[in-house]
């Protein structure tokens, strides 16, 4: 449904550091594909090239069989795009914004109402409120409705959950799962690593380069090291002891635990337990654990 081939974008003078550096990936029909990486990694530039708002400096990309440069008019009719920044008309009401976007695409709200029913019902009681006066969560839901109202075949969502609290984030992902059942292809970006597990496939991105593309499960399965999780009453001290272990491949805080990794088969659970008790953490709980996407990301960064 989407194919990017060696996409390059460089801002400023020629020969500068590229914002997007030979990025290639593909997204299948009906898939949720997540582009995951920190601010400044190049996520928005990729979105803007795929949505025909920015010309690539190199490489090609195809959306639903259409070229992003030569077929840009056709692409604009069949995609829905929700930019990272709120871009609706703040002085139009909820209902007016929705009707406006439907009209732009030569359709009506009624015709495609089935696509937005679930989401719009939560907005219904604010239908006459100006969009600029909505809460953050409600703005986000309205923006999604406006991006969906012309029944696009591909939906591009650029950081829809950034700065959104965990409860609203969870609700938003539940909405996306329901849209997936309507056969809409969804490409979404996020800086939150925990959202990776909700995608069918993900691409990890940092400084314009894709580090890896795979299903979250395969990516975790491919984590090369043995990973342990450790906790103790004095976590600050425990983290220092973790950092001081010179046999580790990595060691970092992960919520209530510290994660510490070693090359496969080089350290046993018993050895690690005695390491921590030697360092004064007789209460340390040491367990074998599996990696998270965040562990994988850190691993790619340190390679």
């Amino acid at each position, binding site marked *: 449904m989407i194919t990017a081939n060696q996409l390059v974008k460089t801002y400023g003078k020629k020969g500068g550091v590229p914002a997007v550096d030979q990025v290639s990936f593909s997204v299948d029909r009906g898939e949720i594909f997540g582009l995951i*990486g*920190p*601010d*400044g*990694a190049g996520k928005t530039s990729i979105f803007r090239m795929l949505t025909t708002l920015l010309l690539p400096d190199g490489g090609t990309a195809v959306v639903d069989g259409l070229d992003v440069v030569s077929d840009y008019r056709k692409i604009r009719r069949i995609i829905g795009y929700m930019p990272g920044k709120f871009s609706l008309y703040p002085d139009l009401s909820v209902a007016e914004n929705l009707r406006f976007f439907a009209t732009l695409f030569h359709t009506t709200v009624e015709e495609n109402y089935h696509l937005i029913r679930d989401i719009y019902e939560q907005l219904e009681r604010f239908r006459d409120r100006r969009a600029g006066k909505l*809460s*953050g*969560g*409600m703005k986000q839901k309205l923006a999604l409705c406006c991006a969906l109202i012309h029944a696009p075949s591909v939906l591009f969502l650029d950081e829809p959950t*950034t*700065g*959104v*609290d*965990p*409860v*609203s*984030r*969870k609700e938003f992902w539940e909405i996306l799962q329901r849209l997936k059942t309507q056969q809409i292809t969804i490409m979404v970006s996020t*800086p*939150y*690593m925990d959202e990776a597990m909700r995608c069918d496939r993900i691409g990890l991105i*940092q400084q314009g380069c894709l580090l890896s593309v795979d299903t979250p499960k395969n990516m975790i399965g491919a984590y090369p090291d043995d990973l342990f999780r450790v906790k103790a009453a004095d*976590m*600050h001290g425990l983290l220092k002891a973790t950092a001081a272990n010179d046999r580790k491949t990595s060691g*970092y*805080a*992960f*919520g*209530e635990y510290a994660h510490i990794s070693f090359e496969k088969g080089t350290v046993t659970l018993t050895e690690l337990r005695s390491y921590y008790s030697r360092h004064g953490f007789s209460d340390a709980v040491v367990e074998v654990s599996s990696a998270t996407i*965040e562990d994988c*990301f*850190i691993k790619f*960064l*340190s390679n």
Partner: protein
Amino acid sequence: MNIPAIRAEKLTKRFGDFTATDAITFEVARGEIFGFLGANGAGKTTAMRMLSGLSRPTSGSAAVAGYDIYKQTDLIKKNIGYMSQKFSLYEDLTVRENIRFFGGIYGLAHDRLRDKTAELLSRLALGGEADRLVGSLPLGWKQKLAFSVAVIHEPAIVFLDEPTGGVDPLTRRQFWSLIYEAADRGITVFVTTHYMDEAEYCHRVSIMVDGKIVALDTPYQLKQQFHAASMEEVFYRLARGAKRGD
């Protein structure tokens, strides 16, 4: 020395008939890392603005670093640091100029500012970038520099408003080591975040829902109290019933 860093009693702020912060009562001990959590629109920012002397409460009382938030706002501003993801540094000034600017604002003497600048550049390994414009630095470096500048005057308390939003996982952890170091030096840290793993790094955590503090304890005790496996679950249970958004 036994005065708490922050003491708030029934602190309330109303805007017309809307109660943004509704009679919150809590204390933060010196040197504590205090996580101030809540859904969007729960009233966190309003509470932080009152505690930093920027907004006058409607009712209730509070003391920050021992100073009254009605009468001694100037003293409060001198004794706190503040950093947020949105505003932190001047992008069109160099690293060195930003340090000098903020050091000057906080009244550091010339010699002390020179020592602090050298110390800071070496601690952040930014020596080679001292004369680069801040706008051209990667976000992660900016955030670490912004934090260091916010505590350049060794304030009693530093307020951090979503300091790690959007930064990569390695930088997020480096940022937290800076927080731990500051707390070790006796600086009280008051931090908001949407990352629930970061709630675990706090000594105690409060959770606000619809203007009220509905839970306040150590992460361990909160998980026990709500029979939850993670802070994410604790948060979800409490904030799911929220009536309002931001």
